[in-house]
């Protein structure tokens, strides 16, 4: 069962695809047909990634319209109705259809099998179904804009009874609900796929404590998805039943309980916050070591911190409901405070990773450091919000808008685009230009602070969120102008990114297998990886097999001499096709120790 490799002298081995590629791959579909029919995790992952990025751009444009409306008091750029649709769709697209799918549909789909040495996801067709459900959700939710009543307009949280048929009768609202049910199922399927893949398809030698941290965070994210998303789907179906079948689950008139909606929604909603954060924490945990030329500091501590965050995140939902007056304040406050502890552990471990390293400030590294600097600010204001009296004072003001944007933009945008710059060479085989990448980073970074710091001040001065305009006499004009200017900077920074993509498409610079001096398994295979990812695998003796291969002198645990029966040490086409057979995976995972036992 063991697949062992000889190490080539030049460092990385060359998989020689021409010789090993099984015959049936010769007729692989290409272009549009490939995009539509593929069950390859890399193709599906790319579909996910580019779809979610288009959603991101659309939602970003909506944000810019919102900021344009707010730049002056009593502005009439958009009507109240249009404004309500805009912030609802901006928030919904960003959270339901960009941030999550970008992480677990895009990155995780491509990276998890690569990082654990698996040929594909455990259930490739289910994976394809996930993507098509997701795409349907995107089209249906955005289609709301084409209906007579316009898109959904009750906020991304759709509090009952405002979201009921009495107060929001439009078709756009129904399409919004259906879209979320569809993408909710897609997320659940992806969660199942991730868990199964990580538990059963690890390569020989890849024990759980050698799994790279990004994959670990995806494992925990998958668990959280399975915990949280069924509740969201159920709540949406109940809402739909209320709207169309008179179920009266959330209406007082019919004997229902409106505040039940908030409990159900946030029971999904807070774990969702970590479903959105953990994958990006994982990306940072991959980027920082590579550009510090060191291992991650406190690998196991990171894993336990991730688990602790996930566990705590299921019992803090009512911190979004402090002002309802119907929740047990001290309990949810204490639980929320406790989350600061494992999050702090992560921060200190990231700092420990850079400590005494040799830091090179490539574009991914800049974004990762940007994440640290930006997230910390949002995290600190989050600790203030965990105090119910302070939450009473600033709940539903721009203070909260600033807080959640700082954490979300830090994770999804800074860490997310750090990951994009980091793995793009692996996904495509091409480099992105570093000058344009740095321009992207600095403009985004400056825009970030300009946009959100004034929002804190506005919130403390009493400006409520979701209001379409404000009176001139309140003295909010100047801060809003600064915030809008920052938003324009943030928006424009993505032009550099688009130009970068364009240039790398027209003028490719080959990336090679390992452009960054990487550490984890994915840097071993070609860029882009061949179908089924690996023709051979290096020995896996730590969480960074590629680094171990390049620097055998630093191997943490010195292995006893391995005696390999003749014929196994030099894998031919037989070994390659063993890997590419999906059903061979189950038994390989359970034999994961055999690599070191010899």
């Amino acid at each position, binding site marked *: 069962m063991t697949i062992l490799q000889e190490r080539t002298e030049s460092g990385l081995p060359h998989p020689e695809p021409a010789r090993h590629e099984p015959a049936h791959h010769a007729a692989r579909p290409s272009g549009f047909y490939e995009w539509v029919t593929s069950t390859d995790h890399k193709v599906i992952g790319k579909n996910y990634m580019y779809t979610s990025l288009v959603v991101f751009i659309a939602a970003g444009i909506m944000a810019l319209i919102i900021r344009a409306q707010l730049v002056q008091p009593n502005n009439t750029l958009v009507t*109240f*109705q249009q404004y*309500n649709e805009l912030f609802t769709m901006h928030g919904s697209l960003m959270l339901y259809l960009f941030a999550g799918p970008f992480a677990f549909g895009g990155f995780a789909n491509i990276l998890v099998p690569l990082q654990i040495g698996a040929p594909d996801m455990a259930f490739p067709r289910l994976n394809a179904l996930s993507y098509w459900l997701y795409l349907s959700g995107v089209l249906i939710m955005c289609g709301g804009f084409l209906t007579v009543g316009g898109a959904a307009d009750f*906020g991304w949280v759709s*509090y009952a*009874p*405002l979201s009921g048929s009495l*107060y*929001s009768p439009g078709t756009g609202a129904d399409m919004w609900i259906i879209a979320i049910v569809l993408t909710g199922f897609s997320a659940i399927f992806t969660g199942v796929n991730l868990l199964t893949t990580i538990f059963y398809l690890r390569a020989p030698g890849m024990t759980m404590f050698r799994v790279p941290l990004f994959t670990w965070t995806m494992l925990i994210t998958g668990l959280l998805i399975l915990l949280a998303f069924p509740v969201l789907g159920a709540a949406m179906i109940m809402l739909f039943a209320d709207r169309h079948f008179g179920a009266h689950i959330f209406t007082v008139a019919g004997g229902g309980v*409106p*505040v039940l909606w908030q409990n159900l929604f946030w029971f999904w909603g807070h774990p969702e916050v970590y479903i959105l954060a953990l994958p990006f924490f994982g990306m940072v945990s991959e980027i920082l070591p590579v550009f*510090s030329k*060191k*291992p991650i*500091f406190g*690998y196991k*501590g990171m894993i336990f911190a991730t688990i602790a965050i996930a566990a705590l995140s299921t019992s803090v939902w009512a911190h979004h409901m402090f*002002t*309802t*007056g*119907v929740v047990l304040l*001290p309990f949810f*406050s*204490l639980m929320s405070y406790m989350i600061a*502890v494992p999050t*702090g552990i992560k921060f*200190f471990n990231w*700092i*420990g990773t*850079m*400590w*005494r390293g*040799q*830091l090179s*400030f490539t574009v991914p590294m800049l974004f990762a*450091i940007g994440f640290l*600097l930006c997230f910390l*600010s949002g995290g*600190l204001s989050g*600790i*203030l919000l965990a*105090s119910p*009296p*302070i939450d*009473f*004072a600033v*709940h*539903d*003001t721009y203070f909260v808008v600033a807080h959640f944007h700082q954490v979300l933009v830090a994770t999804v945008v800074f860490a997310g685009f750090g990951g994009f710059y980091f793995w793009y060479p692996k996904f495509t085989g091409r480099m992105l230009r570093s000058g344009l990448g740095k321009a992207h980073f600095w403009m985004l970074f400056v825009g970030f602070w300009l946009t959100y710091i004034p929002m*804190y*001040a506005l919130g403390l*001065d*009493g400006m*409520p969120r*979701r*209001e379409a*305009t404000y009176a001139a006499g309140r003295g909010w004009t100047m801060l809003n102008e600064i915030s809008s200017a920052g938003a324009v900077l943030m928006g424009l920074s993505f032009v550099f990114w688009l130009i970068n993509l364009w240039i790398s498409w027209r003028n490719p610079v080959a990336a090679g297998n390992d452009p960054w001096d990487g550490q984890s398994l994915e840097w071993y295979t070609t860029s882009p990886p061949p179908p089924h990812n690996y023709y051979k695998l290096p020995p896996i003796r730590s969480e960074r097999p590629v680094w171990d291969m390049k*620097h055998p002198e*630093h191997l*943490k645990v010195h292995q006893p001499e391995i005696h390999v029966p003749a014929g196994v040490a030099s894998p031919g086409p037989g070994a390659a096709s063993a890997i590419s057979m999906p059903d061979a995976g189950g038994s390989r995972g359970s034999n994961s120790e055999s690599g070191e036992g010899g």
Partner: protein
Amino acid sequence: MAFPIFLPATRIARLVPVTATTPEARTPDTSVARPDRPFEKPASAVSTRSPASRLAVLVTIVGTALVMTSCTLPAWGAKHGATLQGHDTFKLWQGLVLAAIIVGAIVYGLILWSVFRYRRKSDAIPRQFHEHTALEVIWTAIPLLIVLVVFFFTVKTENNVDALAPHPAVTIKVTAFQWGWKFAYEHDGVTVLGETLQNPEMVLPVGEAARIVLVSADVVHGFYVDAFDFSRYAQPGVTNRFDLTVRHAGVYQGQCSDFCGLYHTEMLFRVAAVPPAQFRAWLASTRHYESIHHTYIT
């Protein structure tokens, strides 16, 4: 909505001569601070004997306790809290922000230090250390202690803010509706009602506890007065009760804080705090007016 709206628009202005129009007081008024608040007591509840973390804990406790007792800290951009309850929140805010700034300064300092100090100087491979158990225990334990201290003060303030006076001077039933407010002084037979930009005005006695009974006639709304450092949802099916003890006479702007539909933006109101004698005179004359005209004040 089903509420009848009548608008004797200028009437309220005549009835309520406003003594101070600045919505917030720059100097905290300690003369009205309640004696029954054991707020100034230094924290002695948390104790640890671990030598490694003793210093940090000491610093935290002393620092936080100092902060909690001090009124000279900066406001950090927040309103001072025009009610007793809000002022408590404000003092908690002052302390917590200071704690956050200290923690933030340390962590930002460490990040920036490692970024600038350890930038690449050669191609040498740095020492490959993986973990340090003692360090990791310390940076788990210290944040844990800090949040427990913070939580302790949070609970104290929260109990003050949510406390209900046994005999409030006046009870006002506030009904939020799409898109306006109804303030009913039910024991006194007076009702104030107004939609969107009409800015209905709630009149309160200064220095006396006013009980607010908050409900919603339709969707979820938020009763929010920024100068009071306080908000509470008005929800169908839920009755919320809280006290407002306004410290300074004045007119304060209020607004619906939870998104409630098309005209959420314009769901405004005001709170006028007047001296108690004047408040009772207003109640009497308004009751008289309503009994003659069968209509509500806007």
